[in-house]
């Protein structure tokens, strides 16, 4: 039974709960939102146990939606999307808890947060391209408001930039989806947006495939973000409220890489594995890794630093995806999860210190480890996880990506590995300037250490950091068949 309604419940519940939360009075809204997001997590939790690694697409639900145009409501998860769904439901309660004292219009904020959940999960579970597109857009609107209403000083600029950037890509994607739909319809006589239907029709390369791949590529590359489509990210990250940044980094960016895994690669394997495309994407990933790291190093704003570090991390993901070996694809999936956890935790930490001191500038701090030892300790652990210290989650993902990628792209992997050095340089330098060095600003003397509520936000993330770092097998075991299937589908014959 659970198999049949699980995903639908995951989609419907936050939407209903979100609308409900919006009409509640302010003091009760946040508690209700917390309960709602916990319920959502509880609904999703059994996915972890009931998921059968070798079972392909599972928890399928399939109903006609607009039959005249072959649009169906089809949802399901496999080893790739499972973790994205769980990551989403895992981060949501933490985000609610982390923005407990958000100023202004609490009911609307928490309501939007919940509605956003529907959109995000929808993107990850849709197996109908039309539904996918709808969900892609659904997620955009709450995020726009979250940045634009509750953001920092320059929030409108950031929100509009985020919106138009994403919209630009997604409209091209819509055109490509429609083109695929008509092409497949003409070829088979069945007009349907179903993923499996389009997948079976999309293998012929040709000039159209190039254009369609280009459209998908642009939509997803903006979301990833791949250099040079990344400049919305620093602005959006910096201006968004804490929960917004966490979700942006933790989940929204993964939609891009997920899109590549689920759509761009399997639908256009011929184009995606064409020499020029391979070269370009691997090169862009490398540029992202190095460039993101170097630019992160010189940021005066800690949130911006994390934003650019995301560019760097997602570069690893892209490299892993395009290397298409079992290790690299699974590594890429793990990096996606890890980045959600570690960068999410970093944003939470910045948000917590920002609430106390109202500054994101690295220069405003210094030496606060003496004043707020707990905060400093957790910030250190999370930073180390972000730079991939072995024993933390960051290492497992990056190691697998590099290991897998080395097989096909040894030189590129060697270059990517320098990202490890740069990561240490930028994060430790920032860490030093925030929690170490002399304490010069008397305002920092009065900082208070983390409250129990804040600890409650961070402890689950820390637990995941250690868990994935030490015992990632439960994750790897669940994603392996899906990764293997993807590789076999895209790359029928292994490269020499």
């Amino acid at each position, binding site marked *: 039974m659970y198999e049949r309604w699980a995903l639908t419940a995951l989609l419907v519940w936050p939407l209903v709960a979100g609308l409900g939360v919006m009409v509640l009075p302010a003091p009760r809204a946040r508690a209700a939102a917390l309960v709602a997001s916990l319920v959502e997590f509880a609904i999703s939790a059994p996915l972890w146990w009931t998921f059968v690694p070798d079972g392909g697409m599972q928890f399928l639900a399939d109903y006609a939606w607009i039959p005249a145009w072959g649009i169906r409501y089809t949802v399901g998860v496999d080893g790739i999307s499972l973790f994205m769904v769980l990551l989403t439901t895992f981060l949501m309660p933490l985000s609610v808890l982390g923005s407990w004292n958000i100023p202004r219009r609490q009911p609307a904020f928490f309501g939007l947060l919940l509605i956003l959940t529907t959109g995000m999960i929808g993107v990850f579970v849709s197996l109908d391209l039309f539904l996918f597109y709808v969900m892609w857009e659904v997620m955009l609107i709450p995020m726009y408001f979250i940045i634009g209403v509750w953001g920092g000083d320059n929030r409108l600029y950031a929100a509009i*930039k985020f919106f*138009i950037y994403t919209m630009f890509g997604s409209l091209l994607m819509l055109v490509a989806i429609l083109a695929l739909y008509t092409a497949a319809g003409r070829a088979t006589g069945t007009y349907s947006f179903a993923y499996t239907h389009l997948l079976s029709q999309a293998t012929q390369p040709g000039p159209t495939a190039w254009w369609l791949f280009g459209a998908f590529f642009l939509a997803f590359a903006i979301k990833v973000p791949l*250099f*040079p489509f*990344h*400049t*919305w990210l620093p602005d959006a990250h910096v201006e968004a409220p804490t929960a917004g940044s966490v979700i942006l980094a933790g989940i929204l960016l993964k939609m891009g890489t997920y899109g590549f895994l689920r759509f761009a690669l399997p639908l256009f394997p011929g184009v995606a594995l064409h020499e020029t495309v391979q070269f370009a994407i691997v090169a862009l990933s490398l540029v992202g890794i190095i*460039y993101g790291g*170097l*630019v992160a*190093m*010189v*940021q005066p704003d800690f949130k911006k630093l994390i934003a650019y570090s995301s560019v760097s991390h997602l570069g690893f993901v892209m490299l892993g995806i395009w290397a298409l*070996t*079992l*290790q690299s694809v*699974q*590594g890429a999936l793990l990096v996606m999860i890890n980045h959600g956890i570690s960068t999410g935790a970093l944003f939470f930490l910045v948000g917590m210190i920002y609430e106390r001191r109202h500054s994101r500038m690295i220069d405003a701090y210094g*030496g606060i*480890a*003496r004043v707020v*030892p*707990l905060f400093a*300790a957790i910030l250190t652990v999370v930073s*180390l996880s972000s730079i991939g*210290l*072995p*024993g933390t989650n960051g*290492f497992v993902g990056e*190691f*697998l990506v*590099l*290991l*897998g990628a*080395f*097989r096909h792209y*040894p030189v590129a*992997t*060697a270059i990517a*590995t320098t990202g*490890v*050095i740069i990561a*240490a*340089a930028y994060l*430790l*330098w920032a860490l*030093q300037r925030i*929690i*170490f*060095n*002399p*304490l010069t600003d008397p305002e920092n003397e009065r900082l208070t250490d983390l409250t129990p509520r804040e600890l409650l936000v961070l402890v689950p993330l820390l637990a995941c950091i250690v868990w994935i770092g*030490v*015992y*990632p*097998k439960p994750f*790897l*075991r669940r994603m*392996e068949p899906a990764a*293997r299937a993807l590789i076999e589908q895209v790359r029928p014959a292994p490269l020499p």
Partner: protein
Amino acid sequence: MTGTAADFVWLAPLLALAGFVLNGALALWRPAAKTAVSVIGVGVLVGAFVVAVLTFRAFAGLETDVPLLFRYWSWMPVGELQLDVALQVDQLSTVMLLVVTGVGSLIHLFSVGYMREDPGYARYFAYLNLFVFFMLVLVLGANFAVLFVGWEGVGLCSYLLIGFWFTETVNADAGRKAFVVNRIGDFGFLLAMLMIFWATGSLDFGAVFGQAPAAFDAGGAAITGITLLLFLGCTGKSAQIPLYTWLPDAMQGPTPVSALIHAATMVTAGVYLVARCGVLFALAPLSSAVVAGTGALTALFAATIALKQWDIKRVLAYSTISQLGYMFLAVGTGGAAMAAGIFHLATHAFFKALLFLGSGSVIFAMHRAYHATHSPEDAQDMRNMGGLRRFMPWTAMLMWIATLAIAGVPFFSGFFSKDEILAAAFARGTVHPQWLVFWAIGLVAALLTAFYMTRLMLYTFHGPNRTGERERQHLAEAPWMMTGPLLVLGVLSAVGGLLNLPALWGGNAWLHHWLEPVTESAVVDAVPPLSHGTEWVLVGIAVAVAVLGVVGAWRLLKPAGLVPAREAPAERGFQRVLRNKWYVDEIYDALIVRPIVWLSREVLWKRVDQRLVDGAGVNGAARAARAWGALGTRLQNGQVGVYVALFVVGVLLVLWRAIG
């Protein structure tokens, strides 16, 4: 599972980890509970040492050449990659286990006295325990990845401990520098791992070393690349040219840390790695030569810098770099010299830990003296010391033992180990002449070692006291909690040579034989054993060099002529170059660090990101769209007449289509 005590080897790292967790919790919530911290911090280490001893005895009792493997859980099972979290007990790792836990226990004990007054006492022990945990993972790891966990983990602890007094920017800088420089080395290690995996299909030591001879062409590009990359990792961790610059700065940490991490254990990890991968290095003669050559060169280079340092700990830091150079010379030479390298690693752990802890005692006393009078003088500058043997006789005596040991004066531990390395290099030189050069460099470095160590002792403990009139009354021997461990280390430094007393001196070269199962596969090519006559000549030369260094320093240097640091004139000429460490830090800074930061900030961020991508690209597109929009608003001027005219034009256009 062997049914012996060796099965419980996991207890050793686990104890250290438990110590970290408990002390870490205390550091955050009960930083004042110093007694509990001491008991836990030292207790777990002593416990780990007991486990190490029992493991060693059990393993020796098995009399096996095969390593014991303990798989605990599957770590990264992905396709061909099957990585387990597994520990390995063999001859090499048991030796390392004993050194780490043994010396570690003594240094922990010393720390109880040394750090007693520090507000970060609990944090300090938490870090120290964590370090031991990672170090044990490093030496016990059964595959490259687990070793790498320890490898980076000790780097992390080193980072945390160097920057222990983080409120000083210098300290925090030094810690960060150590970590980043180490990461450069780790980059090499990582790449080497990737290459090893795709060449042999595994990362387990057993599988890799078993398949290496078949998987690689001896002397081929692949194996040479792998070993050179591994060695890059070693140069980072073990502070060799070109990545040694972090170690002198690492002296910003508490002195026991310098003793434990930056002298006895962590920095020797590179030596351990090369010894561990002896099979691979044996397949790559070029890499072996690079290792040996770099080692010899580093030994000499660091020794020259040590000649002119005034900070007592910096002298020891450069001395450490220099001695590590010897160890690399040994492991690069391969074969029997591997054992010599490990031998020197062990003796060096004893005498260098003793030297550091002794200097710690000195600094402790100096600091107390200056603290009592609120003097701002530098407690580590040798120009402010002098004549200290009258105030701290025990420390002086013990440090003299260590000095004689490191200088290679006969019958102290260092004499045997250093002599063996030089002899092995010479022996290899009979086949490959370049090793004769390495041998000669090593010899010169030995001379300098004897010289600068004698200089250190002379300026610190002899001659008139320069501390200051008032401060002098406060100078005294450190408490027994600190002198006790020194005593133990003193004994070990004196008689440590017994571990591997060569046949030449009537010993049975125990360590050599013990390590044979590990080193025998690393034999490069048959090197004819030296005749006894040659060996005696070599010993004679080495002794002569050592004595020359000690006596020369004693005769040439006049501690009476020194003035306290604040009155000292600036050095001139070549002395100044040495004083400034050949300006290597400045050169790195000007050639690498600054250009990268400048490139990142001025070019990448401000030009490319903000101007080009965001300015011209994104906001440019926005501006273009707005310009089009402005054109559009021109039409929407509210004049209905214009609208009508346009409407008519539209109709006409549609009609045009209708006409066809």
